[in-house]
């Protein structure tokens, strides 16, 4: 297993999780003693079968897991932002007002407009959310996260509801934005290709612990090899033979 970047460098990790337990019932835990470090600016994709605790981990990091019992140690930066699977724009606020919702400061409007331009929605400031397409709504929700300059961006299957073409465009946009703003990213996805395309590192969750932790280093392994390895770990039979 590849060593964590946080242990190689002197900088403390942006996210540090130790021995995290979470369960919804007494019988079995969703997370069973999970350890995880994410370095500042590192893009980590979290994959795993349904019910392996991906979303539970993300919600724990976001501080949204109030109805769950558990214990463990979590350290996250001050500025955390969440991108949900649904864009979650308030339908009664115009797009720009959604972006700058709760944003303090006089220049919120200017920053919001700038963030909208950055995701390619310049000129749509005054539109109602229902007037945007699904992809545009998700862009707006990205802008809402970015305008807060997060040190940690948590994304819970943000492209899951989008069509294939839109998803490819969103991948490019997300990479561009992350290179520009350099937040640490934890992207939950069920799509192995998406994970390999976007992330610096892919973590595979199984039974509430990290089953595999792979650095996406294309000099060592081709995307196809990586994909086959991950699918194999997920228990999916692949027709690809190296």
């Amino acid at each position, binding site marked *: 297993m590849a060593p964590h970047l946080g242990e190689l460098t002197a900088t403390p990790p942006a996210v540090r999780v130790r021995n995290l337990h979470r369960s919804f019932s007494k019988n079995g835990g969703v997370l069973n003693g999970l350890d995880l470090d994410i370095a500042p600016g590192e893009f980590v994709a979290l994959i795993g079968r349904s019910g392996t605790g991906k979303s539970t981990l993300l919600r724990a990091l*976001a501080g949204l897991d109030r109805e769950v019992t558990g214990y463990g140690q979590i350290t996250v930066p001050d500025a955390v932002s969440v991108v*949900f699977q649904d864009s*979650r724009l*308030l*339908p*009664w606020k115009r797009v720009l007002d959604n972006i700058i919702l*709760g944003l303090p400061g006089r220049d919120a409007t200017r920053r919001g407009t700038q963030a909208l331009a950055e995701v390619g929605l310049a000129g749509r400031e005054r539109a*109602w959310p229902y007037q945007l397409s699904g992809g545009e709504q998700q862009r707006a929700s990205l802008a809402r996260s970015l305008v807060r300059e997060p040190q940690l961006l948590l994304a819970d299957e943000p492209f899951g509801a989008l069509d294939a073409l839109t998803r490819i465009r969103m991948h490019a946009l997300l990479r561009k934005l992350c290179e520009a703003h350099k937040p640490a990213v934890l992207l939950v996805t069920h799509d192995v290709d998406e994970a390999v395309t976007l992330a610096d590192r892919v973590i595979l969750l199984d039974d509430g612990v990290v089953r595999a932790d792979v650095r996406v280093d294309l000099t060592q392994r081709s995307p196809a090899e990586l994909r086959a390895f991950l699918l194999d770990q997920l228990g999916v039979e692949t027709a690809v033979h190296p």
Partner: protein
Amino acid sequence: MTAVVHAGPETDLASDADVRVVRRRLGPGRRLRFTFWVGPALLLAIWSLGSATGVISPAVLTAPWDVVKALQDQWVNHDLLGNILSSLTRAAIGLGFGVVAGTVLAVVSGLSRVGEALIDGPIQIKRSLPTLALIPLFIAWFGIGEEMKITTIALISMLPIYINTHNGLRSIDGRYAELAETLELGRGEFLRQVVLPGALPGFLLGLRFAVTWSLLGLVVVEQYNATSGIGHMMTLAGEYGETDVLVVGLVLYGLFGFLADSAVRLTERKVLGWRRTLEN
């Protein structure tokens, strides 16, 4: 391999392109101007026709033109304008108190379990008490002056505001509260940006009820020791058997109710433009 590009038939696009306008097949269809007057106008037409042909005898219902005459008489000889104004003032003040109280109670009860425990029960009890039965009690408490009248109207109009605002507030998608938490909104901002706009459709529906109920309340309270108001005018007319004046009162009530409701609905359409419903 050859690529085949299907060219459309050669037509003048500018003239043909926009001919076919696709409308939603189900639902009420395109909004037409002044349509909300059609129903009342038809009612008036039937009434006139019935009176003119004698199908509706004057003993049953005064003919429209006789109502107009009675209205003229009331206007000139009995200070109808004063009656209208004092009635509308009562209704407006009562409605104002009722709307504010209903909204505040709905928000407190909607956002806190303690508030709900304290407020919701009594309101539901109040709902099942007939206002008519409460008036003697209010007279004992507030006397027979304006306080009693305004309190009664306020209580009547508070209920629909409370119930519909509370319902609208509780129907707000819980995911928006989750979003507000991740955006670290404070309580005040959560209230202003999420709760109140989210509950607005419910509130406006409540307002439509409240407006008409406040007018209904007038009829009742103005029977007690009133020296002015449309209800007062109707009570007198009832005593003297002046059915034409009674109908004047009824027509005025109907007209005010209709206008007030139209005003609320117009507001509704203006401020709820963010919704994509069958309404717009």
